Structure formats: C-alpha cells, structure tokens
C-alpha cells in the first residue's frame, strides 16, 4: 500500500475505498512530545484539505488537514490514553482516523514517499 503525503505533513494510505490518515515522522518530530490528539467526530465529512483534527505538544499546537475527502468511520482511540504513540510510530500505529468514500483521483495532487523526501530536503 503506497503512502502519499501533503505539504502540511499529513499522510494517507488508501485501501480500496478506505483511507487511513496520520501525520508524518517529520511532523511528529517537529512538534516534540505529543500531549494530546483532538480526534475528529465519527461521521464527520471533510473535503480534501479541510481541517480534520488537531494535535498538541508541550510547546505547539497544529491543525491536521485531511489529505483526501471522505467521511470519518473510525478513530484511533488508543491515542486518547497514549498520544505518545504518534511520536513512537507516526506513520503506522500512530494513525489518527480512517475515512471512507475517498476519491482516488485526489491522490494525484499529493506527493509519494520519494517526492515527500525531496520536499523535506528543500525545506531545510
């Protein structure tokens, strides 16, 4: 399953019509120790790049924008008790929510892993 990334450092993995969303290792590192993830409401409908969720660390707070359109059908409850999961495994166990109804065509406006890596180099 390929991962795609946004300029705002979110990632999405698509499996059929289901999309899993999280923030990149880079973003997690920049934020520092995550202290709170504001998970989206179940059933919330978002368009690509709408504000989906929120995330806080000791010294920063960030909005998380949805890489694709869709409806929230699952949230990672583990993050309520253990927000540090995002630091430990931002691109795997630290997933934030799952959306359904994703439009695969939207992926074309995102970066693949290699392009994102290049993008990060450019930011330095």
């Amino acid at each position: 399953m390929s991962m795609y990334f946004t300029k705002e450092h979110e990632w999405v993995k698509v499996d059929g019509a289901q999309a899993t969303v999280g923030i990149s290792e880079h973003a997690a590192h920049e934020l520092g120790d995550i202290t709170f993830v504001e998970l989206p409401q179940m059933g919330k409908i978002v368009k690509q790049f709408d504000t989906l969720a929120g995330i806080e660390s000791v010294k920063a707070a960030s909005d998380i924008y949805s890489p694709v359109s869709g409806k929230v059908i699952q949230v990672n409850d583990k993050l309520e008790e253990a927000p540090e999961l995002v630091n430990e495994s931002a691109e795997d166990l630290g997933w934030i929510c799952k959306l359904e109804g994703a439009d695969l065509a939207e992926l074309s406006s995102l970066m693949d892993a290699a392009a994102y890596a290049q993008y990060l180099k450019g930011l330095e």
Partner: protein
Amino acid sequence: MELIYEKSVPGRTGVRIPLCDVPKAAPFPEALRRSDAVGFPEVSELDLVRHYTNLSRRNFSVDTNFYPLGSCTMKYNAKVMEQAGALFAGCHPMLALLPGGEKLVQGPLSLIHGVEQQLAEITGMDEVTTQPLAGAHGEMTGIMVIAAYHKARGEKRKFVIVPDSSHGTNPASAAMAGYEIITIPTAPYGDMDLDAYRAAMNGEVAAVMMTCPNTLGIFNPHIADICEIAHQAGALTYYDGANLNAIMGKVRPGDVGFDVIHVNLHKTFGTPHGGGGPGSGPVGVKKGLIPYLPTPRVVRNADGSFGVEAHPEGIGRVSDFFGNFGILARAFAYITLLGSEGLIEVSEMAVLNANYMMARLRGEYELPFETTCMHECVFSASRQLKDGVHALDIAKYLIDRGFHPPTVYFPLNVKEAIMIEPTETESKQTMDAFIEVMLEAARVTRENPVALHEAPVTTPVGRLDETRAARAQQVCCEG
C-alpha cells in the same frame, strides 16, 4: 520542598479571628451547609512564614537578579510606589457608585482622571479608560471599541490584520471580540511585508494591530504609511503599547496615525510584575471613538470636583469598577515622580542599553536582521545550533550563573530566538557581567556543548519533564 498541605497537622490553629461581640445566632441551616470544612492547611503562623519565605527564595526576581526578559520590560520597581499604592487599601469602590458617594472619594477619582490625562499626553491620544485589567484585556477592549465604531456606521467588517511577529494576545483578543484573523508575514528587512499588507487591506478589514517598535525591537519607518493604508480602506489602527518603553518623548502613537492604543502599566510604567500579574492595560482612543469607551467614566465637573458618569453608548463594562486601581496609583506615582524629563531619559537609556548589548554580543550570536535595535534586541542561536546547542540550553546555563534568561523562542518568526531587553534601570556593570557569561556560553558551545545540556545544576530542581506534566494533568493536591 513540601507543599503547605503536607506540613499541615490536624488541630493546628492559625491567626485568631475577631471576637464575637453579638449573641450567637441559631446554626446555619443544615440543608444548605457544606458537608465538610474547607481543607485549608492547618499550620502555625511560624510554619506559614517559614514556608512562604523559603518558597520565595526559590525565585529569581528583579530585586535579586538581572532579568532581561525581552518584551516584558523588567525594570526596577521603585519602592516608593509600593508605599503610595498602600495608602488606598481601605477605599471601597462601591462608594463611588452609591448615591451621594462621589464626594467621599474625590482623591481616588482625581487619581484616575489624572493618570488618564498623563497617559493621553504620553501617547498622543484624546481620552483614556483605565478599566482594562491587563494588556490583553486592553487589546480586547480596544478591538471591541473598534467593532462598536464600525457597527454604529452600519459597516460589516469581518477581519483584523496582524503581523506574524505579533504577540499571541493580538489575534487572541481580536478573536474574542468576534473577528477572523489575517496574518501578514515579516519581510527580510525585519518588519511587516508592506506589499502583502496592502494586498490584504480592503473594506472587510476592521483594523490592523501593530506593535512599534515591533517584537524584534525594530522601529518600522513605514508605520505612518501602514496607518494611512488602513484609513483609506476605512479600517482603524490599533497600537499595542508593549514596547512603549523605547519611545517615550520621541514618538507618540497618536501623532503617527493610531486610533486606539493600549499601554502596559506593569511594563513601561514600572509597576511590579507580581509573578505573572496583576498588570493593567489602559486603553487610549482618538476623539471619534470616545463614545464607544467602556462605562462608567470619571469626569471633571465645572466646579473642579470629580464625578462618575454613565457612558451608555459605549461597549459596556469590561471590568467591575475602574480597573486595577492599586496599579493605577503606582503608575501615577511613577509618572509624577519622573516627570517628562525622567520619562524621556527612560527611553533614551533603555535604547542605549539594548544597543550596547547588541554591539557586544553580535560577534558570537547571529542577528537575524541587520539594523539598529530600540529597547530590545533579538538574536538567533542558529550558530550554536550547529554544535547541538539550542537557545533553551543557553537560557539554562545563564540560570546557573545567576541571571534570569532572556525571552526565548519568541517572536515565532526567528529560529532559536533570544530576545534581550535590559531596560534602563540596569548599569553597565550588570550588563557587562551578563555579556561575559553569554560570551562564555558561546565558547563552551564550541568546546564542550554537552555541558550546556545538563544545565541548570545549581537550582533546587533541574530541567523538568513538561511532557509528563501535560499528560498527567496533576494540577491540584487532593485533599
């Protein structure tokens, strides 16, 4: 150190309360009574005094340490101001609001009127309200006044513009006053990008909020243009007076084109910081905005006496009475004590001291913007970062050497920012001692950066686990 609750021993009594010289009443009704006495600590007066005396000694403070916290203006708090403020301890504010009460409180009313006039003259504004209880409260009040002005004209304006270097209270206050925020980036020359600002200004913008000198300590020579551009679009201009210490007697925001301003009495006017407050944020306005000021207002009657007048067209009440009167009294004392020549000297020396700091430290620390500074200078620890040392590490090293650190990581648009504001009340000797340690920190960074990661080691506690604090949320000692 133990909490006061941990020193508590059941049955210990504190101070004696007054005697009951009236017949005891029937007991308070059981149904409305609290079930247990409040769990306040039970300690002797000596334990109380020891505890808080020792606790106080765990603080750095202006009276004990050089405290160059940029943007906070940590100047010396004159002791005569404390004496002056204490004189009004027994004055009940409700007296001013009782029918026939005004004549009994002429002294405090005259002081409020007096400090309003002093501040109006210092800032070049037409009228001042002392109601706002802190700078941020002043910002909110000022933006509410602006909102009322536009509303009275039937204008529907949705936005307030702020530079990205602005203090967080600017957008937060505008949001509380009901506005959405447009943020303008800082240009390479160190101030708000004029072109981006021009492009963003239109008939939907209610106001622009500026700090001048800005949070980088830089005076924006285009400040009058910025006001003009706003006025042409029918927007108003707001001046955040946090950095007023740099320009007293030199520039007045009212002359430059600002419609509404606030000042921070606990910064520029030397009232004590109190460990985080109380502050006071009086707001000044130009004539056209006077109708929208909060109610009530202190007025001077024809016979020279002072009264309290309702101000019904205004935004209503933003605090219960006339503001933090005790702080107003101290500021009034400060301004009266210094006089115009004293205040001018304050700004001149504040700017001199900051430029001296900048000149002596620029060899070792990166200056993000190549320009003279005013009363504060901002460095970046970007050079030190190459050796793995952050602004935070330098701050902690300073603590071990007996200095309160400068502000770090603000403003947000400078990486590893270190903002130094010595203020005018510091001597060259003190500054030299601080500079030596800053230079030493730069040397240690090059030679042995790991040493800086452990600092501070001389304080009662070392670096604290802030992540744990935020996750555990232990904010009260359970009783």
